């Protein structure tokens, strides 16, 4: 093949621009830390990467949901804790009243304390989390208990903590206060004490015992839900790490390898320049006199 000066020049230009294009890509990948800048650089890779980014976002939302649910349930747990104490106190007072012969003043004192307890239980029934009544079913904007009247429904508030996984996070007033009627039982005690019908207190004690069992059962349920949600969070966090690893595999940059490739291309580039400088310069003209 006949080689002319322009063949040399063109080849040099083309080779230089190819190497430079390579180096540009490597530099961009190193600078952004991402392997794929545009869909056309790796169509399958980018689809995979986008899917993972979406999954990661979703995962984050589910984690937030689960944590919010735990916080709601912890509020409920605190409320139930106070409720247990209150009902226990009512139970103890009733047992005391049933056992001894109380003077009218003592009965009055016990009665007063039980009324106080009932007020407190009313406050507990109206416990709020984030400005919402937690024992009101889905009727979260209205006080479930006011002046002895219950206003609530038995619907569950559901949070989504995974694709299609919806967890009820509320206990309804029915479950906590009304199946075994705490207020009603205490009210009976008050009435029986007032009219000094101590013989009736035995039945009240039994009713209150059932109330305590009911509250404890609710606490167990809340505890179980919190456990489940904590496990969910742990699983979601593991999943997040997993997704991030996959994402790094698809779209991450292996810096060591890239820098090595870049050094290599840099050498090629320098060599091409050096050879070019030697090849382009001389012609026969340089040696004619």
């Amino acid at each position, binding site marked *: 093949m006949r080689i002319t*000066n322009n063949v040399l020049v063109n080849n040099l230009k083309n080779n230089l621009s190819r190497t430079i294009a390579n180096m540009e890509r490597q530099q961009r990948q190193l600078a952004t830390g991402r392997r794929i800048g*545009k869909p056309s650089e790796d169509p399958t890779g980018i689809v995979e990467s986008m899917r993972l*980014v979406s999954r990661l976002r979703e995962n984050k939302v589910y984690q937030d949901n689960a944590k919010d649910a735990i916080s709601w349930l912890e509020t409920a747990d605190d409320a139930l804790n106070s409720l247990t104490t209150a009902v226990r106190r009512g139970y103890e007072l009733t047992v005391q009243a049933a056992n001894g012969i109380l003077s009218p003043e003592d009965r009055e004192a016990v009665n007063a304390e039980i009324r106080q307890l009932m007020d407190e239980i009313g406050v507990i029934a109206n416990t709020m989390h984030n400005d919402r009544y937690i024992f009101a079913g889905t009727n979260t904007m209205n006080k479930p208990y006011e002046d002895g009247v219950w206003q609530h429904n038995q619907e569950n508030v559901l949070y989504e903590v995974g694709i299609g996984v919806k967890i009820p996070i509320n206990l309804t007033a029915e479950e906590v206060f009304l199946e075994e009627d705490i207020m009603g039982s205490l009210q009976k005690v008050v009435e029986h004490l007032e009219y000094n019908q101590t013989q009736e207190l035995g039945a009240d004690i039994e009713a209150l015992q059932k109330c305590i069992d009911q509250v404890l059962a609710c606490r167990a349920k809340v505890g179980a839900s919190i456990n489940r949600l904590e496990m969910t969070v742990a699983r979601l966090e593991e999943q997040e790490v997993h997704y991030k690893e996959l994402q790094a595999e698809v779209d991450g940059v292996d810096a060591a390898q890239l820098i090595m490739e870049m050094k290599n291309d840099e050498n090629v580039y320098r060599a091409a320049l050096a050879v070019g400088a030697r090849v382009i310069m001389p012609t026969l003209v340089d040696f004619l006199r």
Partner: protein
Amino acid sequence: MRSTFFGLNIGYKGLAAQQRALDVTSHNIANANTPGYTRQDVIMEPTPAQKVLEGYVGTGVTITDFRRIRDSFIDIQMRTENRALGEWETKDNIIKKLEVIFNEPSDTSIRSVLDQFWEAWQTLSKNPESVSVRTDVMQRGVTLANTFNHLDAQFLDLQMDINKEIGLKVNEINTQARQIRDLNIKIMEAESGGHTANDLRDKRDMLVEQLAKNIGIDVVEDELGAVNILVGGQTLVSRAVLAEIQFNNNSPLNPTAATLEWYVPADGTYLGQVKLTGGILKGYVDMRDSVIPAYQAEVSELVKAVAEEVNALHRIGFGLDGTTEVDFFTTTDGSLEFNTKNIQVNSLIQEDINLIAAAATDDPEVYAGDNSNALAIAALKNKLAMNNGVASFNDFYMAIIGKLGVQGQESGQMVANRSYIIEQLMNQRESVSGVSLDEEMTNMIKYQHAYSAAARIITAMDQCLETLIFRLGVVGR
């Protein structure tokens, strides 16, 4: 009998021929870097011999031709490859622009905005009564609709830009065709004497090659040295006759309606639509009329499905004040068909966020507390609502991006391949037709020496004559 001055004449012919050869060498060197230039070679021949008693005696040299050293097969290959390169370069360029428009991967792409929209519904499911969360849901909806609208506007912009480019290209093509026609006339005139018009042909070959990149052409050279150029079966240039392409872009807002039409300026007739077979122009028209509308249609399908699925659930839900049967998304122009241009968040909802239906139960007490409809809408994210129930919105959208990526990769590879082939062809052509300075310098020395020698011959002849005239026969003095 030998003529006395016979030798002098041979010497003179030598001088003249070598000097002419030096001129050609000089012309080659001067044009070493001229694009499209073909190196020329001097063809020398001995002049007809003379019959003398003893046999035939040579009479010197003459130049018969300045040969243009060119391989026309490379020209044909170059035209074919350039036609493909033009088309693919254009497609690649537009697809890269589409990639920028879709803006993946990024935090402002449709996918991100869609994700954020579903997230807003998730948040609403946790706080169905909250005004701020409701505002967020509305805003995310507005952002989503705006992103779709913006995409549509960018598609239109791109198509309008393409039409501008097509307009410029058509002008360029018409100018090139006119120049080729003019060169045809000059070459036919110049070559009527039998010699090739080297430099005119170089110029015309280069123009034809540029034209081939702009628009797919078939080239035929006729016996008079004129080229005839056809585009999709219709004559663009035939000897001294010229047709023109006219670009009718009468309604700029409807870019796909623009047409390319044949027009004969000589008699003012129109010869119908231009059939494109390759080149930059075909790349532009294909992108404008098929590729961009296809992406637009696919995104519109997504828009339609998202809007209809959200609306279907939203209509059966209840707002804070118990309002029901409200669409979340509406069309901008009031028609029924959602598409990228034609979607917005219901203006009623934009004015009153209480209308956002998070509750699914018709009970005034729970309009604020029931989150089940918000949950149902948030769950649409993973519903297999596309492609007859096999793909989620995300899957569908990612398939679009995947397709764009594959097309971009293909066009990129085609451009790289064609460029490489053209590089090789350029080198081959350079190898045949290019000027080598070493070679020219060698020739220069060769011709210079021959010139000096011919001059020396004349000097020798001169001395012979001097001897003859001054030294011979002193007797007569």
